[in-house]
């Protein structure tokens, strides 16, 4: 007897600040104008996606002391865009990445609770920590939070926000005109939190929202990040959209749930994934090559190499061989404001490995960056892509995907029109929204139904 098929979760990531987006394509529109967000959100909702996702970065990236100018630069404010999108959509979940280091719990909890009210229960919070003094220079706190305190602040921030969300139970507002009782309880919203990072008390001033709490996402991959997710998140935004790496990550994270008294279904794994579609598999492969070359110009390739070499490589020819000089190993990095920098923990070893790869394959600098850099995850005809996505999900490489198209804002249209119907035919993706809230779409219980196991466990 075969297992029933898992239902796939799909979400749409509005392309952000990185070289995934081919801004030079004539079909590329604005990353800022609201009409782009409306188009994107409506496409996602037409396709019955679970939610729309926005990333965040709170300082413009720099390379060699100058603002990085080769990729899309600039983005609007997350809360503002999501609240406005709530007006032009009815079902689509609205997920915002909000940093726990450069915000305060009272304000962020108010914003998410407000978004949940104003969207009728569709809000989600991707909690990120991304600490660096560089970004801190834009904020009151400054860059003074020691790195090891990132996750401890994030954990306490989230726990505090939950205390604020839970400080209203949902039945306090009577608004009884006859008796003149607006509030059942003068203490509605009362809270006291004493901890290592926050010592706050008073009254939260937003009544309980439709979802009780926003859905919580986590997006960090370290040991601490995985534990944080297992203890406290409803979903993970991960980077493992390839089959074997995805399965390993999935197993690892899901196996951590038991110790927090949580069930297998209480944490969804949703990697970021890109796609390139063609009428045939061959056509899609050709198109994918073109997209890669558009994403990685010669100039971009040199800049990417600088992440590892940590030195100015502008004198090199991107169509020529890799530099024969070695990377500079230093605390100071040529690139600032990029999370990926941490991927290059041993630059000397990476450089050695890349030189060997390039020599063996006769790759130029640009070829190397194209071949080793961000890969497109799903390339092929709509049938191939639909089948592959389903295979990945059924094999527990993920519970679905957060798709990042390479064209803004129309890059999702072809997926919505051609791939989604096939997934629906296979019976693995909804044809209509069954509930109204994001928790409904994701199959997550309302926090009032699961009780306080999360807090009790931590």
């Amino acid at each position, binding site marked *: 007897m075969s297992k029933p098929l898992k239902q796939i979760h799909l979400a749409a990531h509005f392309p952000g600040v990185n070289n995934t987006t081919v801004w030079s394509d004539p079909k590329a529109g604005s990353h800022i104008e609201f009409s782009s967000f409306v188009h994107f959100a409506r496409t996602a909702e037409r396709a019955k996606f679970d939610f729309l996702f926005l990333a965040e970065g709170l300082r413009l990236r720099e390379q060699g002391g100058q603002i990085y100018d080769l990729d899309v630069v600039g983005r609007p404010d997350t809360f503002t865009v999501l609240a406005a999108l709530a007006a032009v959509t009815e079902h689509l979940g609205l997920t915002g990445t909000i940093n726990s280091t450069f915000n305060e719990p009272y304000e962020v909890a108010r914003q998410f609770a407000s978004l949940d009210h104003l969207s009728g229960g569709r809000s989600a919070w991707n909690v990120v920590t991304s600490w660096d003094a560089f970004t801190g220079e834009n904020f009151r706190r400054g860059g003074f939070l020691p790195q090891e305190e990132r996750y401890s602040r994030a954990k306490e921030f989230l726990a505090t926000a939950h205390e604020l969300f839970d400080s209203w139970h949902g039945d306090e507002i009577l608004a009884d005109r006859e008796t003149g009782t607006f509030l059942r309880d003068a203490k509605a919203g009362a809270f006291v939190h004493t901890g290592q990072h926050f010592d706050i008390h008073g009254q939260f001033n937003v009544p309980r929202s439709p979802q009780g709490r926003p859905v919580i996402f986590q997006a960090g991959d370290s040991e601490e990040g995985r534990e944080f997710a297992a203890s406290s998140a409803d979903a993970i935004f991960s980077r493992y959209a390839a089959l074997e790496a995805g399965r390993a990550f999935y197993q690892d994270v899901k196996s951590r749930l038991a110790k927090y008294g949580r069930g297998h279904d209480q944490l969804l794994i949703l990697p970021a994934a890109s796609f390139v579609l063609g009428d045939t598999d061959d056509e899609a492969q050709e198109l994918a090559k073109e997209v890669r070359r558009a994403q990685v110009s010669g*100039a971009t390739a040199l800049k990417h190499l600088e992440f590892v070499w940590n030195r100015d490589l502008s004198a090199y020819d991107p169509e020529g061989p890799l530099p024969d000089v070695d990377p500079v190993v230093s605390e100071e990095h040529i690139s600032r404001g990029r999370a990926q920098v941490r991927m290059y923990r041993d630059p000397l070893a990476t450089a050695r490995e890349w030189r060997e790869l390039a020599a063996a394959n006769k790759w130029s600098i640009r070829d190397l960056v194209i071949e080793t850099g961000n890969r497109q995850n799903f390339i092929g005809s709509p049938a191939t892509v639909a089948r592959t996505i389903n295979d990945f999900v059924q094999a527990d490489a993920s519970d679905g995907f957060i798709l990042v198209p390479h064209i803004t804002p129309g890059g999702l249209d072809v997926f919505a029109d051609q791939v989604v119907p096939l997934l629906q035919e296979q019976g693995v993706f909804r044809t209509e929204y069954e509930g109204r809230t994001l928790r409904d779409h994701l199959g997550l219980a309302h926090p009032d139904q699961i009780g306080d196991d999360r807090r009790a466990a931590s």
Partner: protein
Amino acid sequence: MSSTPSSSLHLAVALDGTGWHPASWREPAARPRELFTAAYWADLVTEAERGLLDFVTIEDGLGPQSSHFLDADERTDQVRGRLDAVLIASRVAPLTRHIGLVPTVVSTHTEPFHISKAIATLDYVSNGRAGLRVQITARPNEADHFGRRTIPRIDAYDSPAAREVVTDLFDEAADHVEVVRRLWDSWEDDAEIRDAATGRFIDRDKLHYIDFEGRHFSVKGPSITPRPPQGQPIVSALAHDTVPYRLVARAADVGYVTPYDVDEARALVARIRAEQNAAGRAAEPLHVFGDLVVFLDDDPAAATARRERLDALAGQPYTSDALIFTGTAPQLADLLQDLHGAGLSGFRLRPAVAGHDLPAITRGLVPELQRRGVYRRAYEAGTLRGLLGLARPANRYAATATA
């Protein structure tokens, strides 16, 4: 063709819960159970837009409302709780086309970097209709919600100790606004070049570090959000005293004052103009709006009766920092014209009961003003700056860069 006579006055409404009278939620026209829904706010703002108002402000606070000046109370007979004003404004922006959206922003506990990009984005989602109303808070209980500073306890706003605390908070607010404004200018308008030939998305020479160093914060910049459609969205502030008048004079596009009669209005405008001169901004347009609470009905007795009924429900007469007007639309129009003559360029009306007095403004007062030829008959501009007769400002950094 402009349908607005040059003598035209401006009108805004201040939205706060079910209205400004603490018992307003008990009126038949109030919708107290819907205060936390988008539909409620959408209905109010579209009603204001139907009346061709310049803008709405949306009140906010970082703690529960209270009948005490500086502390929380324990009352259960008044509206408590509210949604974030910037999010409300954003939520209604796509549902409206002309009216300005001016949420309250509390400078005391927020990050100017976040506020700057939020209001810039409100300007994008509304196609040029955003503003903010900056406010300080001296409430110790609100400081306790953040836990990163203590605000010295004061007993009233007019003691010397209070003056020191409030001056400090207003200085910080001035810095806050300065940072927000510099961040709005930190991208030149044409910074996005998408130059395929060189592979550059932006011209980084048109992005500027703001390098602000102040007593309460320092901010590097540039913003992550490009310069908003209006260049500089509207900054506004309510002011009752010299220190806040100075903030208005130095930093605002619109100041709200609370005169009780024509003479006081004239005096307040003079004080603000003097501060404006002192700040070297004499040549810049600065609107001074009068704030009034309004009970509007078809006959004066009905308005008075309604006010008395609400006062009885509240258990005490309603008092306000602003003049409380009770009467008919023609009477209010007379008063507004007199105050307009004393130098106020517009008014921010605070409906005592939102569900009653807002439609009375849009369907009673506005037609009355139109009949008198002192109010627009159609929206004449696409942006809030345009409605207020303010030009789109040049970018401060572009000027220095080309010098």
